[in-house]
């Protein structure tokens, strides 16, 4: 049987439109961080012992209550036709590069992938999985891209540190940072020349 604090938090996690951070939970319920965390654990225990259809998900830096993935085959029917298609391999690769390299330019993405990534990037922008975050202060001042909080939710990640193989990728990127820069500047250099020739 849930106590009053856990009930209040459960209500927030059900009613919210996007994950609720721990600090917001504390602010709204007036409890401390630790009590809030413990209350979330009690909610999870109660949901599971009652055999309920929902679980607490830790997503994009916060919590929210979602349906259990094993019931997807039932719930999915409610949204038939409205669900996005799966991302293409090109989009996933592009997204992976942007996620670990962010902020990243299009030339950097293309340098790593070795192919034009225009349409993949457009899809990702349209689906709100990446966004423009600024410009790089290099010749040509290319646009920089980063991932959105929608990205974290889409892949069920609680934050960017929870990206798969984070340590491995960080090391690898450190080692190849120079390569990527060189290839990217070659790519954008080529592009500029082509544009001028036309």
């Amino acid at each position, binding site marked *: 049987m849930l106590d009053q604090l856990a009930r209040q938090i459960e209500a927030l996690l*059900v*009613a*919210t*439109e996007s994950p609720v951070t721990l600090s917001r939970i504390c602010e709204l319920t007036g409890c401390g961080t630790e009590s809030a965390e413990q209350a979330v654990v009690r909610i999870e225990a109660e949901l599971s012992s009652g055999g309920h259809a929902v679980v607490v*998900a830790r997503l994009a830096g916060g919590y*929210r*209550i*979602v*349906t*259990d*993935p*094993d*019931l*997807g*085959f039932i*719930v*999915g029917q*409610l*949204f038939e036709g409205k*669900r996005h298609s*799966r*991302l293409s*391999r*090109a989009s*996933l*690769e592009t*997204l*992976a*590069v942007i*996620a*670990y390299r962010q902020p990243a330019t299009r030339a950097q993405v293309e340098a*790593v*992938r*070795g*192919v*034009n990534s225009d349409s993949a990037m457009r899809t990702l*922008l*349209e689906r*709100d999985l990446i*966004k*423009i975050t600024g410009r790089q202060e290099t010749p040509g001042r290319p646009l920089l891209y980063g991932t*959105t909080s929608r990205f974290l*939710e*889409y*892949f*069920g*990640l609680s934050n960017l540190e929870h*990206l*798969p*193989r984070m340590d*491995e*990728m960080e090391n*690898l*990127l450190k*080692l*190849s940072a120079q*390569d*990527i820069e060189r*290839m990217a500047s070659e790519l954008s250099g080529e592009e500029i020349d082509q544009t001028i020739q036309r």
Partner: protein
Amino acid sequence: MSADIQKACRINIEDFEGPLDLLLFLIRRDELDVITIHVAEVADQYLKYIREAEDLNLDIAGEYLVMAATLTRMKSRMLLPVERALMEDTEDSMETLMRHLVLYKAFKEVASDLRENESIWRDVFAPPGERARYEEDITEIDSGQTSLLDLLIALENMTEKNAPPPLHRIHKPLLSLTECVSALDNLLPGNATRHFRDAIGENADQAIVVSFFVAVLELVKRGWLTTEQSYPFANITMKRKEERWEMNA
């Protein structure tokens, strides 16, 4: 067809995300190691594959051909006696290519991890939220809810063909008195009677209606036309009185 060619034909260029992806595939298929791979071997495999694809008239993206050229150059330099400097240069570019392959392979693996996450989380559904139940009327906006893309799409939409034309084109100018009178002249042959609305058309816009109405008033004033209206807002019946309308007279 040799066994090798058959093997090559079975793979489709459409299945690859670019030259690096194809290279990785060839390396894995031949159970070679990315780190210790001999460039000549890979180059041969790669070029063979590209040639097969060309023979099948497949559309090969430029990136594949650039890679083919790079591999050919590396291979030829290794086979020919060349200057030491050129040799070192080739070794450098080979090393870079191998590092690039390792990097790309890592991202491919991450992409497939993300694919797994995607397939789990596609089956997860969040409640729609209860904003509608609780929202206050007077509210403020929050950062980040509108993306830069929305702004750009707004710009784009303004250029679409279905966008309304500029203001000055929407408001058609009033027709001149002469234009209206000459139009009415044609619309009222002999001493026929006609409803005002019928004459100018049911769908005429406000500007047209006003223009014609002013013209009718002018014609009535000159005694060239009579009008009747049975009750306020009813249709106006026009009847021609004068045979010839000479506006300049």
